[in-house]
C-alpha cells in the first residue's frame, strides 16, 4: 500500500516554478555553473507539493436527482477534475488553481442581474440553491487545448435562472461576468487577460435544456478551483465558455465581447462550439486526450458539438460554422 505523507514544507513556501526557472537561468547566464547546479538539484528534489491524492473535498449537497441528460461514460476521477484546471484568476498553469484558490471566499456570495430585464436584482447563493430542484448531470467537457473529462456536475438548467430574472424583449444575448478581486485572486494582478473574465451566450443557446448553472460536482459543493460557488456549463462548447465564480449576469441586445475574443479574436470565437473540422489556428481539434486514462492510452476522436449534435445542431442551421467558430 502506498501512503502519501503530507510534505513538511507548506505549498506556499515552495518557490513557484517560473520564479525558480528565472533564477536558474539568471545564475547560469552569469556563469555561476556550480550555483546553478545546486539550484537544479533542489528543484528536482522538490516533489510536487500537492499530490493528486490530497485534493480537499467539500461539503456534501443534500438533495439532487439524477438527470436523463447524463452520459454513462467512465467518470474522470475527482482528484483529476479538481486538480487540473484552467482558471487564470489563480494562475496560468493547470496545477495553479488547486494550490491558490484557497483564498476565494464563496460564501457569502451574491449575483447581480442587470441589463434588459424588467427590474435589476440581486440573488444570494443560498437562494440560487433554492431556485430550482438540483440535478446531477454527467457531461463530457472538452477543453479547446485538446483534452477532455467526464464530470458529474450538480446544478440546474440555466433557463430556470433566466425565467426568474425576467428578461425583456430586448434581451438577445447573455453576458456572464466572473469575480475579479485581486485580494482573493492572485492571477488578476497580472494582465494576462482583460479582467474580469467575460463569457456570453445567445438567448436561444442559454435557454437550451443542456445549458446549466453548476453549483457542485461529485455530489459536493463546487471546489473553489472549479469555479465556486456558481459556474456556467455548456457541454457542446469548449470549456472556456463556462465562466466560473459568476458575480454578474447581464442581458443585452449586442453580442458580448468575451475575454478570449479580446485576447485573440482569430483563435477564439464567440460560439466556440466543439468542432473537429475547424482547427484552432495553432493546433488540430480532431482528437482529444481523455484525462484520467493514464500515460499509455491513445487520444480519442472529437465529436461535433462534443457529441451533443443531435440535441443542439438545430440552433445553428444556416450558419457557416467555419466563420462563426
Amino acid at each position, binding site marked *: 500500500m502506498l501512503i502519501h505523507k503530507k510534505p513538511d514544507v507548506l505549498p506556499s513556501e515552495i518557490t513557484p516554478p517560473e520564479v525558480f526557472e528565472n533564477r536558474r537561468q539568471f545564475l547560469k547566464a552569469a*556563469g555561476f555553473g556550480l550555483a546553478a547546479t545546486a539550484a537544479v538539484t533542489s528543484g528536482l528534489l522538490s516533489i510536487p507539493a500537492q499530490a493528486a491524492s490530497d485534493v480537499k473535498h467539500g461539503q456534501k449537497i443534500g438533495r439532487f436527482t439524477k438527470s436523463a441528460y447524463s452520459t454513462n461514460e467512465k467518470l474522470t476521477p475527482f482528484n483529476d477534475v479538481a486538480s487540473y484546471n484552467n482558471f487564470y484568476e489563480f494562475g496560468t498553469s493547470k496545477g495553479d488553481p488547486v494550490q491558490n484558490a484557497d483564498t476565494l471566499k464563496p460564501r457569502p456570495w451574491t449575483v447581480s442581474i442587470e441589463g434588459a430585464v424588467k427590474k435589476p436584482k440581486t440573488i444570494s447563493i443560498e437562494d440560487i440553491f433554492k431556485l430550482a430542484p438540483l440535478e446531477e448531470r454527467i457531461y463530457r467537457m472538452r477543453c479547446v487545448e485538446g483534452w477532455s473529462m467526464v464530470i458529474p456536475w450538480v446544478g440546474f438548467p440555466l433557463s430556470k435562472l433566466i425565467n426568474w430574472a425576467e428578461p425583456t424583449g430586448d434581451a438577445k444575448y447573455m453576458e456572464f461576468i466572473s469575480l475579479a478581486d485581486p485580494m482573493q485572486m492572485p492571477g488578476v494582478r497580472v494582465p494576462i487577460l482583460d479582467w474580469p473574465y467575460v463569457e456570453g451566450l445567445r438567448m436561444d443557446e442559454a435557454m437550451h435544456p443542456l445549458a446549466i448553472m453548476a453549483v457542485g460536482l461529485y455530489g459536493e459543493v463546487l471546489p473553489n478551483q472549479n469555479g465556486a460557488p456558481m459556474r456556467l456549463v455548456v457541454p457542446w462548447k469548449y470549456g472556456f465558455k463556462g465562466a466560473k465564480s459568476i458575480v454578474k449576469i447581464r442581458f443585452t441586445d449586442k453580442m458580448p465581447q468575451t475575454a478570449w475574443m479580446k485576447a485573440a479574436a482569430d483563435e477564439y470565437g464567440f460560439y466556440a462550439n466543439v468542432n473537429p473540422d475547424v482547427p484552432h489556428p495553432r*493546433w488540430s481539434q480532431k482528437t482529444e486526450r481523455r484525462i484520467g486514462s493514464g500515460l499509455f492510452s491513445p487520444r480519442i476522436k472529437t465529436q461535433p458539438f462534443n457529441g451533443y449534435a443531435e440535441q443542439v445542431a438545430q440552433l445553428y442551421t444556416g450558419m457557416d460554422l467555419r466563420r462563426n467558430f
Partner: protein
Amino acid sequence: MQPSKKQIAWIKAGLFILALMPLARLFWLGFHDDLSANPVEFVERSTGTWALVCLLVTLSMTPIRLLTGMTWQIQLRRMTGLFMYFYACLHFSTYIWLDHWFFWSEITADIVKHPYVLVGFSAFVLATPLAITSNRAMMLKLGANWKKLHMLVYPIAILAVLHFWWLVKKDIREPLIYALVLALLLGTRLYYKKLGSSRALRAAPEAQLNQQH
C-alpha cells in the same frame, strides 16, 4: 581557476549524473502515479524543457569564457550538447508515441500545418547531424567544416525558443525567460565579435580545446 585533469574527470562524472536527474525524476513521479492529471503532457513538457535548458547551458560556455577568461568549462560542452539531443529525442518520442501513437498521417499533418510544431521538428532534425558528428573521429575528419556545421546550433536555439513561444496560449512569461537568456548569450557573442580585436577572442583556445578531448 583551472581544475586539474583529475578534477575535470570528476566534474564530468558529476555533471553526467546531474543531467540524468530530470529523467530519474520522471520515473520516480511515474512510479508514484504523480505525473499530474495529464501525464502525457507532463512528460512531453518536461523533456522539452530540459532539452532547452541543456541547449542554453551548452551555449553559455563561450560567453562564460568571453566574460571571465575561464576556458576549462568548454570541455563540458559536448556532454551538455549531447544531453540536449538526448532530451530532445525523448521529447520527440513522447510526441510520436505517447501523444499520437504513431498515427503518421496525423503527425505529418500536425508538423506541416502548425508552425510551432514545424519549428520544433526542424530544430530536432537540424540537431541530428550535430549529435552524429560530436565524436573526435568526426571532428578530425571534418576539419574546418566541423566548426561551420556546428554553427547550426544558433538557428536550432532560435527555433527551439520559438517552438515554446508559439505553443503557449496566452501567458508568455515562461518562454520569455528562455528568449531573454538566449538573447543574452547570443548578444554577448556578438558584442565580443564586434570588439573584434579583443584579447579574449585572440587568445581563444577553443579550437585546440575541442581537439584535446
